[in-house]
């Protein structure tokens, strides 16, 4: 574990990313104390530029505090990112594991099913799903999970295919272990590194997807989110730039941080590759 941390630290960008991420999580966790009351309440006169009337980041067209919106929005954005990623992992890992371990007809069936999802433009499918199930946080999470599992399934399948023929898996077969025990006990732990790296990037893209849905007005109408803030500010962007810029910056920093952390994880989990990259530089 200490070794892992040492390798992670070697990637400076990843440490910066982790720092930003921790700040965003802190912001989300302390939002009710930093900005008590509902972010939907009017707190000042409309269109106050940043710094005036105690509005750190200005107020929007209805006099709501943009800073409070960002802090409360961070909770929803992170929550949606995390929950939809977990859901996508559940689908992707199980299907990928079945395809990779069983091979043959099962593999063909699962992979054709996966490709079917990959051929549909994912954003259009997400819009469609949210529109059908009426916008709510649950339907948004569901839609994001449905469009983001196929890459997981493919990665897991590839890992399982190569691990399945390794001698330690064959040894487990010869010991008479059940298929489930082999998949969970022998193959999956050795396939974890790429899954962890991939999931950190999936959280980032889930946050982006959620923002895009909210921007189009397809987010949960009762919850404050970053995408909603940008969407609300876009019509008055020439009048009040701060309404769109600050939430945009929040999305940008969070997604960047997640990507940096993902890269750092990838280096730390594949020390051999990282060393080669370091050696070439």
């Amino acid at each position, binding site marked *: 574990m200490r070794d892992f941390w040492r390798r992670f630290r070697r990637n400076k960008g990843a440490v910066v990313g982790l720092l930003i991420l921790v700040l965003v999580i802190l912001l989300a966790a302390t939002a009710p104390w930093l900005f008590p009351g509902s972010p939907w309440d009017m707190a000042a006169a409309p269109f106050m530029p940043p710094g005036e009337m105690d509005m750190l980041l200005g107020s929007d067209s209805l006099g709501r505090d943009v800073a409070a919106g960002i802090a409360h929005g961070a909770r929803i954005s992170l929550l949606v990112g995390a929950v939809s990623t977990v859901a996508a992992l559940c689908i992707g890992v199980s299907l990928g594991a079945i395809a990779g371990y069983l091979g043959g007809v099962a593999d063909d069936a699962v992979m054709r099913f996966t490709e079917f999802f990959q051929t549909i433009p994912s954003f259009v499918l997400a819009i469609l799903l949210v529109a059908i199930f009426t916008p709510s946080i649950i339907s948004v999470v569901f839609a994001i999970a449905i469009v983001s599992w196929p890459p997981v399934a493919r990665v897991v399948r590839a890992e399982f295919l190569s691990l399945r023929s390794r*001698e*330690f898996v064959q*040894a487990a077969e*010869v*010991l*008479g272990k059940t298929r489930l025990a082999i998949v969970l006990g022998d193959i999956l732990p*050795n396939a974890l590194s790429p899954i962890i790296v991939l999931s950190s990037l999936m959280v980032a893209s889930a946050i982006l997807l959620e923002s895009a849905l909210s921007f189009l007005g397809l987010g949960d109408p009762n919850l404050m989110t970053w995408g909603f803030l940008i969407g609300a500010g876009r019509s008055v962007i020439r009048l009040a730039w701060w309404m769109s810029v600050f939430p945009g910056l929040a999305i940008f920093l969070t997604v960047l941080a997640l990507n940096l952390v993902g890269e750092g994880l990838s280096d730390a989990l594949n020390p051999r590759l990282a060393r080669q990259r370091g050696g070439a530089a």
Partner: protein
Amino acid sequence: MTLLTVENLTVALPQGGDRPHAVEGISLSISAGEILCVVGESGSGKSITANAVMGLLPRGLPVTSGAIGFEGKDVLALSPEAMRRLRGSRMAMIFQEPMTALNPLMRVGDQIAEALRVHGAGADAAKRVPELLAAVNLPDPKAIARSHPFRLSGGQRQRVMIAMALALEPTLLIADEPTTALDVTTQMQILRLIREIQSRRGTGVMFITHDFGVVAEIADRVAVMQRGRIVEQGPAAEVLNHPQHPYTRALIAAVPHGAPDSRPQVTTAPVLDVKGVEKTYRRGGMFGARAVVRAVHDADFILRRGETLGLVGESGSGKSTLARCVVKLVEPETGTIAYHGTDLRPLSRNAWKPFRQRIQMIFQDPYASLNPRRKVGEAIAEGPITHGVARGKALAKARELLALVQLDPGAMERYPHEFSGGQRQRIGIARALAMEPELLIADEPVSALDVSVQAQVLALLADIRERLGLTMLFITHDLRVAAQVCDRVAVMQRGAIVEQGPTAEVFSAPQHPYTRQLLDSIPGRGWTPPAV
């Protein structure tokens, strides 16, 4: 005339290595027309020595002291450009893995022509390339020159590499384990080829190997390396027959050797009766030609209680596939695999489960056969636990087994990567024994190990077999190992058993021409290691 002199060469290792120097204070020399074999186990610094001479040391391994003289020039003082001109034209190298050393996208002839062109001799390449290919005894040089590397067999590729190395008629040839990745019959051909070219052209050869059989076959002089130092150096006959240094003695004693002793015929009841098993692999389909490989056919054998049957053959002969058929890792299309009269082949996964306790397997690669994320104790105990033994009891048993395979009980709580190859193979053996099997299948259990470790593991296997009364199916490509271990051998060629019988009989009076060819190809056949 002395071609190459290495004096007091020391190459540093990066900090944190297991020793401060990769090689330390080594001195050696090679004259024209002489073959010097550098022998040692993995990690002894023999490849570093070769790379230092070629000026190919990686950045992290600087030469800290010593001198390398080649044809009167100080190699270490040469500029990279001068060194580059020297490489290929005056000294050339052949590598262990002929597939990775050739560019897979370039025709073989073009690659040799390129080597000529780089050194300004490209003009007559069209004429020289077929000549060179003919010189390394490749049939139909014109056709070979036009083919891509993947069309050629391992032995053919190694010949191409040699042709390329010889293209500019270098005076020094460095061969880094050039035959290790090859089958014995091919190895013998390559060794003869190097010997022939060397005597025809008077080239000096530095031949790096770990195999004393190969040394006996080819060397004029020998340098034995241990942990970065040369511990013994001298004429081949001297070192091979009267080794002085204890390490050389230990290495030579570990070489499996000697004619197989004739053992009493085993007439107990059969444990395993394999009849008519066939496994065919089909590739391609729908479009294009279907490639059909008959991996196993006509390979009937009977294994009796308490005996050890060796399955020997070259790579691709189907010996591993046959063994994997027995434990259902590969499912054959037809045939019966009768274990004490029960046909195992049609059994389902569940019906097989009781037999898993009776039939166990040891794998070839000690680095791949243990789950890297599971502690050693757990790995050994998991078989019995799967079959319903209480956890505490299984772990206690694992501790006993570690003692049986001569490992410290403290190993229980450690992960596989903390152990050496030989130790891991012992763990693999303990894992198989934890099931208290009657039949043990050993798939090349020692071929990934250094010769001294190999001897220890073989001794351990013999001891355990004796003590527990195991029946064993022993798969190996090394006839010397088979002669030492097996009561009977079955020789496989292209998926079929071509000859089987008591080991002593097969070795002294081989019937099948292929068996004879295999036996003739054992490196160092004419050399009997001295008793030390």
